[in-house]
């Protein structure tokens, strides 16, 4: 008796056996074994489809080369090219007319240069801009804190409180702020009294952290107080420019926080920028003509 052809057996899942073939299979153990072998082969093949390269296998593609090609094609955009529209400043007049002032903010994305071989990443914002933002925040916080307690803005005055009293500037009528400063005793203008700054440093991390937290609270309070009480008349363009700058600071801080969400320094920068933005919005609102108000931002 002739056995079934191998290619016919290999078609086990394509064409049903004829009656003669079935009869042969029923009698022939060898052909049944062959048929089982083809079924096993198909199972092996299906299992091979589920395998992936091992983790320690060398990758066939490498990101450095791939990213260069993608960038050349414009699929991967650099930080410099990647600008996204920010929400417009919407000002509504009493007559119902709406003015939308478009703004553009550099998006905080990573450039290819920002991805190092060690896997560490840097923010796609120029260093000078980040440094300037940091210095601006610290200095403005210092100045606002000193002004809020009646001290001069210049931090190296030997006796700021005395100078302020003599100039008649220190006696602010905001008792709450003065009270807060007196209670904490950690405002920049009072550091001499603490002996902290004079000592050239802090005694411990917790002490420095407490001072920082307290200074931040005072800075926030002073910013909001100034926003509510500073009657100096400025053109709304000044506030708009400040808002745009603060938005960029917040974008940079937000991007940095995505990399290091627990970093307390970055968190403080973000909060400071956010508070300054809120205060500026209030000031802008007061600087607008009486028939206009900020509807959205």
């Amino acid at each position, binding site marked *: 008796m002739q056995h*079934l*052809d191998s290619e*016919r057996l290999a078609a086990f899942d394509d064409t049903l056996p004829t009656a003669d073939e079935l009869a042969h299979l029923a009698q022939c153990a060898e052909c049944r074994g062959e048929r*089982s*072998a083809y079924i096993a082969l198909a199972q092996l*093949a299906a299992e091979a489809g589920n395998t992936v390269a091992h983790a320690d296998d060398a990758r*066939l593609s490498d*990101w450095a080369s791939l990213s260069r090609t*993608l960038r050349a094609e414009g699929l991967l955009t650099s930080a410099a090219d990647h600008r996204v529209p920010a929400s417009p400043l919407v000002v509504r007049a009493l007559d119902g007319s709406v003015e939308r002032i478009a703004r553009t903010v550099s998006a905080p994305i990573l450039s290819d240069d920002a991805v190092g071989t060690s896997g560490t990443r840097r923010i796609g914002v120029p260093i000078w801009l980040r440094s300037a933002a940091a210095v601006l925040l610290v200095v403005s916080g210092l100045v606002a804190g000193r002004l809020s307690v009646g001290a001069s803005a210049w931090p190296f005055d030997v006796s700021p409180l005395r100078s302020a009293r003599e100039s008649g500037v220190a006696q602010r009528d905001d008792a709450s702020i003065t009270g807060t400063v007196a209670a904490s005793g950690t405002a920049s203008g009072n550091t001499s009294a603490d002996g902290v700054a004079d000592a050239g440093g802090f005694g411990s991390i917790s002490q420095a952290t407490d001072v920082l937290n307290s200074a931040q609270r005072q800075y926030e309070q002073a910013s909001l107080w100034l926003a509510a009480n500073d009657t100096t008349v400025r053109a709304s363009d000044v506030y708009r420019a400040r808002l745009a700058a603060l938005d960029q600071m917040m974008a940079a801080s937000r991007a940095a926080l995505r990399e290091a969400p627990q970093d307390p320094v970055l968190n403080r920068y973000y909060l400071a920028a956010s508070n300054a933005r809120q205060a500026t919005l209030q000031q802008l609102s007061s600087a607008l003509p009486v028939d206009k108000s900020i509807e959205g931002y």
Partner: protein
Amino acid sequence: METDAAIVRRAIEGDERAMRLLWHQHAPHVDAVVRRLAGDPDLAEDIAQDVWIQIFRALPTWRGDAKFSTWVHRVAINRALNALRRVKRLAAIETVIEEDSAFVEQDGDRSMLAATIEAAAARLAPGARTVFLLHDVEGYTHEEIATELGITPGGSKSQLFKARAKLRRLLAPLVDISEAGPTDRSYAAPGF
């Protein structure tokens, strides 16, 4: 945890981190597919790079109705086949497929057993290997294979059954179930 859809959205906008994340997550799978189909390590590297560029180009066409990994798998196969066509690896399939010479070896290779199905498939002629991999490994139907390779469904079946017959011999230790071992089938009558 960020969803595939969210990562893809960011990647479409040109976010390098998102693109790199997609590459990192799916490269092992793409590599496996490309290695199987290419059969040649150097060629596989070129194809893999090409596959990823195509994946990023085509990202906006992923509608989310299939899993992203499934879509990537399809793109990888299609792109690999295109690349193989470009380098003429599949050029002869239309002529070879109608002949009975899909395999360069007949009974002389019985002693050359393969340890894995991929190693065995590497010994097939390019056209037969591609049909076998697409059907039995990747799960394509004969109609889909015919469309992809520009052949008829009948031609795809013919190639598959011949490929299986050869692989069955090469992989005897892995697939033999009977105690008697592989049987000499040279006397089997063609077509019964």
